[in-house]
């Protein structure tokens, strides 16, 4: 397979190009591309009205998992009729993924193409999520659908930069590559931190000259983009990871002159929904994901009532999701939406609350960076919180029997946060009374 080198060269050799720290290998082959084309067609033809009951397609997918997925073989009663007994089926949780994800991997699936994402998450332990390159590439197809629904004519050619993924972290993987599913158009993952660039105004010029059709990133990165006064004119910006406030969305939309699409997706589930073009609610996006809302004990919430968003299906061959509880809350609306998208909407979506920290000099610090420091130390749990005055509080539950170097830990945090007040507390029972204690909390708001 030959790659048009033009756009790659342009991204890598621009005088203001960042210091990319990684060269990535293309993991998609011809068969994957054919499968993605097919998925594009299915997505276009199979999205439509939904009900609270799973479709026959979802039911047969689940039926095919049961004899092959160890965890489900244990928890789902033999001979059960899933269609009639759907509400009795066990749910899966983040804790299952955190503590025994290998029991979810089907017994017969080939492990060779597997990739693994690490996600910090806002509660509990970091997760390792097994994934498949083809399933990850399907996000691009889903993105096309959301863009079309926002009236964006997105059709990058091989010489264009299709997308820049923005990050604003102390350290993260960065690279430039091309996207086979989008005619080998250019793609780069960037870190907006000044240390990554040749000159202070490099990000401005680089993003302007690359003229990306699309910008993706989390709200922290977009806030940083606004601060840098970057003059990119993308067709759309897509905000991921955590909820973007409507205030920031409006400012960003004004600054970039394009729609800003808030994207509801978890590493474990992939994309679930996108913000409706009317700005009211999030339309369910993939046709092959069944979404329901459950009350506290796991019964379906009454029609129109709020509940925990729970998903079944998807495309990740390593992570069959049977009634996976996302930890996010909302209610489902099945009535027709004025925007014309026939898929139901999630209203009052809550739970993707952004957590962000600020260093003593005011720089935004991503919780991922704090997590990177903490995971080098033998901890069972932690709770890191920043108060409105900038002071920080860190409670630690050390791993019993392993020495904890608190001086080193404090020094590493100081390197990240500067001279902020830090109150350190060792608590061997941290989380016992409150198992849902958040690993990170912040009183700071992004719009401040």
């Amino acid at each position, binding site marked *: 397979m030959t790659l048009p080198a033009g756009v790659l060269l342009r991204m890598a050799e621009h005088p203001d190009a960042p210091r990319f720290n*990684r060269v*990535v290998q293309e993991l998609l082959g011809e*068969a994957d591309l*054919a*499968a993605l084309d*097919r998925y594009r067609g*299915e997505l276009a033809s*199979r999205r439509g009205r939904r009900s609270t009951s799973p*479709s*026959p*397609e979802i*039911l*047969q*997918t689940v*039926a*095919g*998992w*049961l*004899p*092959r997925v*160890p965890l489900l*073989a244990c928890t789902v009663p*033999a001979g059960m*009729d*899933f*269609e009639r007994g759907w509400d009795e089926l066990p749910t899966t949780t983040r804790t299952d993924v955190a503590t025994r994800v*290998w*029991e979810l*991997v089907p*017994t017969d699936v080939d*492990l060779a193409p*597997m*990739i*693994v*994402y690490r996600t910090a998450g806002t509660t509990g332990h970091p997760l*390792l999520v*097994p994934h498949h390159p083809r399933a*990850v*590439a399907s*996000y*691009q197809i889903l*993105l096309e659908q959301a863009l079309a629904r926002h009236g964006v004519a997105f059709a990058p050619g091989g010489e264009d930069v299709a*997308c820049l*993924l923005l990050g604003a972290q102390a350290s993260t*993987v960065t*690279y430039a*590559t091309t*996207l086979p599913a989008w005619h080998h158009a250019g*793609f780069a*993952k960037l870190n907006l931190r000044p240390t990554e660039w040749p000159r202070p105004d490099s990000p401005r010029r680089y993003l302007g000259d690359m003229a990306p059709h699309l910008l*993706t990133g989390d709200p922290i990165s977009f806030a940083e983009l606004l601060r840098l006064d970057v003059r990119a004119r993308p067709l759309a910006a897509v905000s*991921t*990871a955590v909820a973007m406030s409507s205030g920031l969305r409006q400012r960003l939309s004004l600054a970039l002159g394009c729609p800003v699409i808030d*994207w509801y*997706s*978890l*590493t474990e589930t*992939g*994309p679930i929904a996108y913000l409706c073009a009317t700005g009211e609610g999030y339309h369910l996006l993939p046709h*092959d994901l069944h979404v329901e809302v459950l009350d506290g004990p796991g019964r379906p919430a009454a029609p129109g009532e709020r509940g925990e968003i729970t998903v079944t299906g998807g495309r990740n061959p390593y992570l069959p999701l049977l009634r996976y509880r996302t930890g996010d809350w909302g209610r489902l609306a099945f009535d027709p939406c004025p925007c014309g998208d026939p898929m139901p909407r999630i209203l009052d979506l809550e739970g993707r609350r952004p957590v962000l920290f600020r260093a003593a000099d005011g720089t935004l610090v991503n919780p991922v960076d704090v997590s990177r420091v903490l995971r080098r130390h033998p901890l069972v749990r932690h709770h890191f919180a920043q108060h409105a005055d900038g002071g920080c509080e860190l409670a630690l539950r050390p791993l019993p029997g392993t020495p904890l170097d608190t001086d080193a830990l404090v020094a590493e945090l100081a390197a990240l946060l500067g001279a902020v007040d830090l109150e350190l507390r060792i608590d061997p029972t941290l989380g016992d009374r409150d198992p849902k204690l958040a690993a990170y909390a912040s009183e700071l708001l992004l719009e401040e």
Partner: protein
Amino acid sequence: MTSLTLSALLRWLREMPGAFRAQPVGFPGGEVRVRAVLADLWEEVTGQPAPPALLAAFEAQSDGKTERNRLRLLLAAAHILWHPTLRASRPQPERLRRFLIQELPAMAAVVPADSVLDDEERGEELIRLALRAAGLHLEGETAHDAEDRLKQVDSVERHRVLAEAAQRERRAREVREAMARKAAEEAAAKVTRE
């Protein structure tokens, strides 16, 4: 009407016409539209057209081997259900639906479609599932006998127990090791990883 013995039904299965043995459309060399075959069957045996949402389940949902196997096993099941006695039994739509979208996909996940032709026990398993869906049992058997015998040839249950027990230990270690190795590679996220 032929008598309902296992040997007669196995012969019926082995004599499955070429149209039911062909590759499903959507795969290399695909010729047969499984959705159309099942739509005809449904209308013939229940007397009503199949709901479109149900028919969507008889189209390929991916180009994977497992999916092709499911569609091929559906064709074999359709052929058994075309047997004059089964066809005339007027199965309850709900029972037939459960067979086609739950029991059969579960079997297809662990049994190669060809083996229902080559391996008598797998043939018997499919025949017994179809008979149960049609509300019938073999000549000389009680409903209880039929259920007992189905349990003995049930591949889904056998695999479920395997997945639950011994295999899980070795496989779990294999998966854990692969994940640890791949996690160290820090997979590149394209466009967005969420």
